[in-house]
């Protein structure tokens, strides 16, 4: 047993165990509540999850040593071509030559971290599965919430027309209120799903939902769309912000034939004002 800081500043007790197969495992229990910590990673929602800052920034030591050696080797090659490399007064032509050399050396081949990571909601989380989403256009110019709800309910195998969604959501001639959308999502699932409004939407929260294989509704001013995935830039300049995107199924442009409208796109998180998310999850208690 040992004390660990499992999510700064939270302290836990880590217990090392030998399981029946002789493999070493460890469990962490919060010291205050003695509750088992069963969620891991900095991408989890803040709270009861174990994560390490060092895990986020430090790669395996052997990889770091390999990269260090490779950079040394490259530097030797470059120095062989331009002996004055580290001396004063290097001119712009020589500087360009260094750039060319680096491209030839394919410096990026030795970096094992993928440039981009992404995840799309899948049909299941077993074996080789497939992406699970279907874009629907909104049936009328005021049915964005109905179409978005329909796409999410389809994922959970509750099949309704957008007119049925509109009735359940109380959609009027000018659109749908958020409260109506929340109520409609629950009633159409016979209350087996619960719809939760998040008024402080963040990209990490969307990512957590997608990682749990759940689509969500992304609301922007006066419009609703379905979100079925995330994408993130892993390698970026230190002073810059990594690009992050959401995979949006937008029911606009509307079309009376719902299979012939709408748009699907990667949305740059930082370019759009995201007002709310609606999370749709299986109810943890019984339906009704």
């Amino acid at each position, binding site marked *: 047993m040992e004390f660990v800081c499992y999510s700064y500043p939270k302290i836990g007790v880590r217990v090392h165990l030998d399981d029946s197969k002789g493999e070493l495992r460890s469990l962490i229990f919060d010291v205050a509540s003695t509750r088992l910590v069963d969620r891991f990673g900095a991408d989890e929602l803040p709270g009861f999850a174990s994560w390490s800052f060092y895990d986020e920034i430090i790669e395996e030591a052997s990889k770091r040593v390999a990269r260090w050696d490779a950079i040394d080797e490259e530097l030797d090659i470059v120095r062989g071509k331009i002996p004055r490399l580290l001396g004063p007064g290097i001119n712009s032509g020589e500087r360009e030559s260094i750039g060319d050399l680096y491209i030839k050396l394919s410096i990026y081949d030795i970096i094992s971290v993928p440039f*981009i990571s992404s995840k799309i909601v899948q049909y299941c989380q077993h074996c080789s599965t497939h992406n699970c989403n279907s*874009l629907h256009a909104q049936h009328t110019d005021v049915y964005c919430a109905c179409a978005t709800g329909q796409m999410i309910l389809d994922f959970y195998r509750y099949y309704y027309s957008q007119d049925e969604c509109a009735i359940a959501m109380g959609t009027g001639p000018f659109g749908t209120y958020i409260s109506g959308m929340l109520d409609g999502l629950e009633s159409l699932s016979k209350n087996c799903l619960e719809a939760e409004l998040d008024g402080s939407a963040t990209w990490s929260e969307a990512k957590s939902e997608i990682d749990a294989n759940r689509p969500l509704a992304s609301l*922007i001013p006066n419009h609703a769309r379905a979100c079925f995935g995330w994408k993130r830039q892993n390698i970026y300049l230190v002073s810059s912000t990594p690009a992050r995107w959401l995979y949006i199924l937008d029911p606009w442009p509307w*079309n009376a034939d719902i299979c012939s409208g709408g748009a699907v796109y990667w949305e740059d998180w930082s370019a*759009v004002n995201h007002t709310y998310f609606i999370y749709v999850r299986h109810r943890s208690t019984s339906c009704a």
Partner: protein
Amino acid sequence: MSLDEENAKKVSNEHIHSLHKDDPLFEVLRNTTAGNPIMVKNVMKQPSYWIVPLLEEKRIAGFARVLLNGKIAHLGSYLQSSGSEQNMAVLTGIDSSKAYELAGERIRKGVEFSSEPIFVHDGPIGREAWLVEVSMGGKPNRWIFVSGQSVYERPAGKTQEGIMK
């Protein structure tokens, strides 16, 4: 910074062939190049962003919405995206003259006067429509929006509020 048409094309081309080049979801965009951008204004008629067609040979395979600061807000494809380069209605839902004609059905001839259609986003980025401003007695009276075959309207100067469409 205010991005001009040429730079909107340039930024789109760079984006397709860098950050999203290996994206299996947009394989259809891999061999595309940016076509001529269309300016999208806000309902107050101020420039807001460019929508740039992504062309595979002459076919519109997708689009990029490029903000005036050079940021690509959206990169994607339409469910129905089989339009040719000449048929920019794939991007705008309907062409300008048809939008004018549909809006015209709501205008009282001789009493009201209508502006030329302007391509706008009615609310958030992406919710695009043609706007025809109707004036009476020299003052803007109504805004008629045309999106695809759908026409809706509201009093001029009033923005959408509080309800999702």
